[in-house]
C-alpha cells in the first residue's frame, strides 16, 4: 500500500498525551518562550533602574590616549566617543598587521614542515610546537619585557646611518610623506600619483594575463611576470618624476629624549603584533600543512611527471587546491586575532578595550560600555568574515 509522500501518519490514539509529538513541541516551545521572557524582562527592569543610555559618550573626554598614529587627538576638546574611536583605530591597526604577517609566516612554516629537507622540516615543527603550546598572554608580555629591558635606552640609541633607530622607546624608520616636489605642487598631488600607480598596476595585470595566455597557447615562454613587473616599475618611475616627485621620505630624528618625524613603531605595538603573529602563525602553519596533506598524493606526482619545478608545483597545483580546505579554517584564526588583540591590556597599548575602560571608570555606565565593546568586536569580526567569504567564494568557484 503506497502512502503519499509528505502526508502525516494517522494520529495514534493509544499514545499518552505527554508523549504526543504535537503536545511535546508545544510544551518545549512554551518553556523556551517563558524562560526567554523572564530573562529579558528581568534584564529590562534592571537596566531601567540604572538609567541605561549612551549620552555619556558625548561628554568631553578630559584624557589623552597614547599610541596614536595618523591621528592627533589631545582629548581636551574631544568627546569620549572620539577617544574610543581612536582606540578602535589602534586595535584595527594591530589586527590588520598581525593578520598579514601571520598569514605570510604561517604559509611559509606550513610548507616548510613538509619540506624534504630534514633540518628545515624539524625547525618548522619546533616553531609550531613552541608557539602553539604556550599562552598568547605570556608571549605578548615576554616580547614586551624583552623590548623594554633588552633594547638600549634612548640615550644610547642604536643608530644605523641616522635613518634607522632602535631603543626601548621603539623603532624609528623613514616614512613617505607628501611633498611639494620640484613643481611646487599642492599636497593633494600625491593622490594623483597614487591614482596613476593604480592605473599602471591594472595595465600590468592585463599584460601579465595576456602573456600567460600566449604561453599556454603556444607553449613558448613569454615571461609574463617579468613583463608586468617591468611595465609597472617603469611607469611608476616615469610618473614619479613627471609629477615632480610628490613624495619624499621623512627621516626620523632624535631631539632630546624623543623621536620626531619618521615612523615610530612603539614597543607596545610591536609586542602585541609580534605576540599575535607568532601565536597565530603556528596555527595557520598547521592548517596549511593539513590542507596540503589532504590532497591526493597523485596531484604532486602528476605535477612532477609533467616537469614542473618545486615552486611551480606548489603555486600552480598544490596551493590552489589546498586553499579550498585552508580558507575556512584560516578565517577562524583571523577572528581569533581580532579577539585576542584585547591582550593589549597587558602591555600598555591603548586599544579599544583600554580606552573603553578609561571611559567606564570616569563615567560609570559599565553595562553600556561593555555593550559598545562587544558590538565593536563583532562588527570587526563580521567584516573579516565577509572579506574571507568573498575570497572563499572565488576559490571554490574556480574549476580545478
Amino acid at each position, binding site marked *: 500500500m503506497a502512502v503519499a509522500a509528505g502526508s502525516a501518519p494517522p494520529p495514534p490514539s493509544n499514545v499518552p498525551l505527554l508523549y504526543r509529538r504535537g503536545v*511535546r513541541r508545544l510544551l*518545549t516551545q512554551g*518553556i*523556551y518562550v517563558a*524562560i526567554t521572557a*523572564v*530573562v529579558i524582562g*528581568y534584564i529590562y527592569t*534592571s537596566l531601567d*533602574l*540604572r538609567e541605561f543610555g549612551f549620552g555619556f559618550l558625548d561628554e568631553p573626554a*578630559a*584624557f*589623552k*590616549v*597614547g599610541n596614536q598614529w595618523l591621528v592627533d587627538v*589631545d*582629548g*581636551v576638546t574631544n568627546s569620549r566617543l572620539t577617544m574610543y574611536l581612536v582606540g578602535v583605530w589602534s586595535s584595527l591597526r594591530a589586527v590588520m598587521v598581525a593578520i598579514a604577517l601571520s598569514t605570510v609566516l604561517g604559509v611559509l612554516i606550513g610548507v616548510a614542515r613538509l619540506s624534504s629537507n630534514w633540518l628545515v622540516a624539524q625547525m618548522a615543527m619546533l616553531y609550531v610546537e613552541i608557539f602553539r603550546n604556550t599562552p598568547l598572554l605570556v608571549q605578548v608580555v615576554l616580547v614586551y619585557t624583552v623590548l*623594554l*629591558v633588552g633594547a638600549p*635606552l*634612548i640615550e644610547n640609541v642604536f643608530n644605523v646611518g641616522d635613518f634607522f633607530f632602535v631603543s*626601548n*622607546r621603539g623603532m624609528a624608520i623613514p616614512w613617505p610623506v607628501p611633498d611639494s616636489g620640484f613643481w611646487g605642487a599642492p599636497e593633494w598631488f600625491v593622490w594623483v600619483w597614487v591614482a596613476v600607480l593604480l592605473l599602471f598596476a591594472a595595465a600590468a595585470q592585463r599584460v601579465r594575463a595576456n602573456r600567460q595566455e600566449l604561453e599556454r597557447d603556444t607553449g613558448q615562454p613569454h615571461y609574463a611576470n617579468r613583463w608586468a613587473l617591468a611595465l609597472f616599475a617603469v611607469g611608476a618611475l616615469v610618473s614619479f618624476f613627471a609629477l615632480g616627485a610628490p613624495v619624499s621620505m621623512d627621516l626620523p630624528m632624535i*631631539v*632630546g*629624549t*624623543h623621536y*620626531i618625524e619618521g615612523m615610530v613603531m612603539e*614597543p*607596545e605595538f610591536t609586542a602585541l603584533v609580534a605576540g599575535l603573529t607568532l601565536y597565530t602563525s603556528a596555527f595557520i602553519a598547521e592548517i596549511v600543512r593539513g590542507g596540503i596533506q589532504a590532497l591526493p598524493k597523485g596531484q604532486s606526482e602528476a605535477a612532477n611527471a609533467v616537469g614542473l619545478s618545486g615552486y611551480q608545483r606548489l603555486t600552480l597545483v598544490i596551493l590552489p587546491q589546498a586553499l579550498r580546505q585552508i580558507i575556512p579554517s584560516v578565517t577562524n584564526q583571523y577572528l581569533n586575532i581580532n579577539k585576542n588583540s584585547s591582550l593589549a591590556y597587558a*602591555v*600598555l597599548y*591603548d586599544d579599544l578595550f*583600554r580606552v573603553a*575602560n*578609561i571611559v*567606564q*571608570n*570616569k*563615567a*560609570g555606565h*559599565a553595562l553600556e560600555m561593555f555593550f559598545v565593546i562587544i558590538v565593536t568586536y563583532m562588527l570587526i569580526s563580521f567584516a573579516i568574515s565577509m572579506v574571507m567569504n568573498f575570497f572563499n567564494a572565488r576559490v571554490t568557484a574556480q574549476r580545478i
Partner: protein
Amino acid sequence: MKRMRFSLLAIGLVAMLALVAVACGGDNGDGDGASAGNTVQTVKDRGELKCGVKQTQPLFGFREADGTVVGFDIEFCKAIAAAVLKDHTKVEYVDASDASTRFELLAEEEIDVLIRTTTITASRDRELAVDFAQTTFFTGQGFAVRTDSGINSTSDMGDAIICVQTGTTTEQNVADHFTDIGLEYDPQGGLSADVAAAFFDGRCDVLTADASDLASRIAVRDDAADYKILPQIISKEPLAPGVRDYDSEWKDVVNWIVHGLIRAEEIGITQANVDQMASNPPNTEVARLLGVPFQGGEVAALGFDSVDPQFIQRAIKAVGNYGEIYDRTIGDNIPRACTLNDLVINNSGCPDGQGGIQYALPYR
C-alpha cells in the same frame, strides 16, 4: 528517541541558566545603589569586613611574598574591623588594585569599604555610587624623573613621554595641566604597577602620580638615588575611604573612626596607654572618645545605633592613633613633619608657608 533526550537536556540547561541569572540578579537588585543600605548590619551578620585595598603599592597597600597585605590603608581596615567586629583580624582584603574597576566593586557590594588611595572628587561623588569619609592622607599629583634628565618642572616636558595610570584623576590632571601650559606630551597609560615598571625601564621620561605614590615606589628601590620627585605639585589629592551612596550610618561610623584616630593623636592617646586611659580617663573628652564613664558618671551615649560607644577605643587598641599608624607603615619614606599630613596643632614650629592640615572634628 535520541533527539528527544537532547532536547530535554537543552531545556534543562536553559532552565538552569535562567535560574542562575534570576538568582544572581536578585542579589544585585537588592544592592542597587539607589536603595538605602545598612552595611554595618551586613558586616556584623557576616562577621567579616570586606575591605577593598590596593595590593601593588608599597607603603599604602602591598601584598608581601608570603601573601599578607600591609600598608597605611590596611591599618584603617583593621581599625574598622576592630571597631565594628571587636576583632581586627576579621578582614577579608579584596584586591582593588585595578583603578578602573574599584568603584564597581563597591557598587556591586563585593566590598564594604574602599580604602585604596582614592581621591575625593565632585564628579566621582556625583556620577558614581560612592560617598567619601574623612581624608586619611593628603597628597597632590607630582612628577618623578631621572636625576640626570635635566627636567626641573613641567615646562621642561614638551613632547615628553609621560607614564600615567589610566582611569584616575591623575590622567585628567595631566591633560588639563598640559593644556593650560600649552605643551604637547605623549601618554603611556596602564595599571599603576605596570606604568611604574615601564618608567623604571626607561620607556618614559616622566612618571606622574600622587606624590606619595611616587615616593613609595622610589623609596623601595635599590637605585632610589637615580630618581627625583619634582617639587611641583599640580593638584590636590585628598585620599579617603569610600563607602556606598545612601548609607549614612556606615559612612558615619567610618568617618568617626578616622576622626577618632586623629583626635587620639592630638590628645596623646596611644596604643600603649589606651587601656590605662580607659580605666582612669583624665578628662571628660578622653572618656567620651573611649566610651567609658568619667569619675563614676554615666557613659556619654555617643555610639551610633549599630556600634557601641567603645568602638574608637577598640580601633586605637588595635592599630594605635593616626601618628602611630603613619610612623609604622610609611615612616621616613615620606617625611611627615610640617607636611600636609602633620597635625595642625604642631604647626607652630614649622617654617613659614608650611604645615599640616590634619585636624579632627570635636568628639562630643
